[in-house]
């Protein structure tokens, strides 16, 4: 977690949201990808991930006044809410299946590694920094789960050009991702990042 930008800034945001709930939006913007990445790793499908992410933020908003700053990142609090929400959902599902004893969720033993979650969240955020056409292809391909052909039809392009855009986008992401990881790994400013391919 050392890689995360924490400390006074986040604390100020939390205090602002506690005073004026409308400021919660800033905490949401800063943590959405994290929570989503955390939840998505632990559930089977996209709709569960969305339901649970929504539940986490609604709970967090409702309880924001109770949050006490103890130097622990805000995301840790959100992960705890998420873990509880996932467990509750699993138990409910178990009851609905008629199982007298609620099992543990299948992957609850495989603890989610916060570093990994953070890396994934980072990647999600980087998608938004891509050039528009690349970003659109990545979103459609991964988030909207469309085929290259469907995307090509929708964007009035050839299949080949969509594949090219996808290739460039992933190359860009990888380059930026590596650069960021390096920046964070070493306290010193990094060398100039690798050039973009296309």
């Amino acid at each position, binding site marked *: 977690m050392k890689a995360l930008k924490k400390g006074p800034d986040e604390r100020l945001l939390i205090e602002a949201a506690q005073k004026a709930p409308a400021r919660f939006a800033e905490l949401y913007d800063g943590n959405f990808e994290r929570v989503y990445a955390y939840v998505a790793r632990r559930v089977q499908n996209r709709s569960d*991930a969305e339901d649970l*992410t929504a539940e986490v933020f609604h709970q967090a908003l409702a309880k924001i006044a109770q949050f006490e700053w103890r130097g622990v990142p805000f995301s840790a609090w959100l992960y705890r809410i998420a873990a509880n929400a996932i467990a509750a959902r699993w138990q409910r599902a178990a009851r609905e299946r008629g199982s007298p004893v609620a099992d543990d969720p299948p992957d609850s033993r495989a603890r989610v590694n916060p570093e990994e979650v953070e890396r994934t969240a980072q990647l999600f955020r980087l998608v938004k920094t891509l050039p528009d056409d690349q970003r659109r292809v990545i979103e459609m391909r991964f988030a909207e789960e469309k085929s290259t052909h469907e995307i090509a039809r929708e964007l009035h392009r050839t299949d080949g050009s969509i594949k090219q855009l996808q290739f460039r986008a992933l190359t860009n992401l*990888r380059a930026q991702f590596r650069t960021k990881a390096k920046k964070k790994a070493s306290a010193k400013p990094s060398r100039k990042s690798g050039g973009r391919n296309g």
Partner: protein
Amino acid sequence: MAKQNPSEQLDLIVDVIRGGRGTAPRSGDKKLAALAEVASNLRDLPRADFRARLRSGLERRTTMATSAKAAPEVRATATPYLSVRGAAEAIEFYKRAFGATEVTRLVQPDGRIGHAEINIDGAKIMLADEFPEIGFSSPESLGGSPVHIHLDVSDVDALARRAVAAGATVVRPVEDQFYGDRSGQFRDPFGYTWAISTHKETLTTEEMQHRIDEMSRKQSDAAAPESRKYIREGFRSITPYLVIPKAAELIDFMKTAFGAEEHFRIARPGGDVIMHAEVKIGDSMIELAEANSQFPPTPAAMVLHVSDVDTVYSRAVEAGATPFQPVADHDYGSRGGTVKDISGNSWHISKPASGNSIFEGFRSVTPYLNPLRAPVMIEFLQKAFGAEEVYRAQSPDGVVHHAQVRIGDSLIGMGDAHGPYLPMPCTLHLYVPDANATYERALRAGATSIQPVADQPYGDRSGGVTDPFGNRWFIATHIQNAPAAG
């Protein structure tokens, strides 16, 4: 397999990653392998529209939370909206009469004012011409308006003069009101009544209520002045007459503890022994005199009605009274406590709960008797003084817990003696229309004479009796106002 270009190969890898939930397929190409790893991390990429929808959902909730929180700060306003016949003239009138300024005026094609707003020293008033066709009718059409407009201004007298000069008619002239305002009512030429008011004195609701009660009492007292001529001014049918030791000190005590006003005092020549004094507590007169060998002490028990029991109780104790029964809420509907003063009088300081107190109708000071058998005393009072029993709470064993009788315009409370509440014969001053007749009746009912009825130098005709229970009654009829009492 034919050699594919890297973007084709990568697309196939992405299909595999997206299809299965497994890891990226191996690829010999180092660069492709790295891109596949990125792609597998993107497998859970959230949908942009979900992110946006959730954000706006949360925002709606925070806006609601914020506005709910902010609601108390939002001041609701109520603005009179006047329907008038001749809105244009009305606006001119309000300018002349109240110094109004015109804020808005919207005119319909037919020339009628559809909406206008004026401002009177910061107060917003809306008005329009009447539109009877849509039920928006003026007082002139309806024959008056039941709603008055209350206008708070800094100088009611000046504004009232201005309004009358402009053509308003006086409904009620400006005067000081019991509720602490100085106000008057004026009707404008369009049928609206304006209560114009300037705040002078800040009062609690309780104080205002007290003033209303005072006023209605004065009015009812004034209502039948002819029939009350036999009662000396400022008195009522029954007045406690405290014949007690330390009379002068007691007056000071009553002033300090109960806010009594001294109205009259006559001392024995060459000394400060009080022969007769009159003090007023609230709306009630109390007479007192120093006890002597001819008139031994007859301290009285009284109920004292106050608005703040606890304060008055502590003030009484500080002023030298002995606590007798601490202040408590009583199940008979009042909060009260009892003290004994330095002269031996017992004061039950009480605040009646509104509505159902047993002390309903009591004045500021009402005598309270604890005879051994209340029904026997009530029977005597009926025979001797024409008393009327207005209330009796009696348990099946015959014990009277509380009873109330009315003589003339006054009440006497009583209850059978019990516990610390022993019989305390007292002296009462009773005004009746015919002192001679009542004196005779009292004797026939079993009282014994102290002094026969005779004209007194202070303008009363009076005599005295002792009732079978030891209470002394001075029975009087007021004949004339003495030039100087005493």
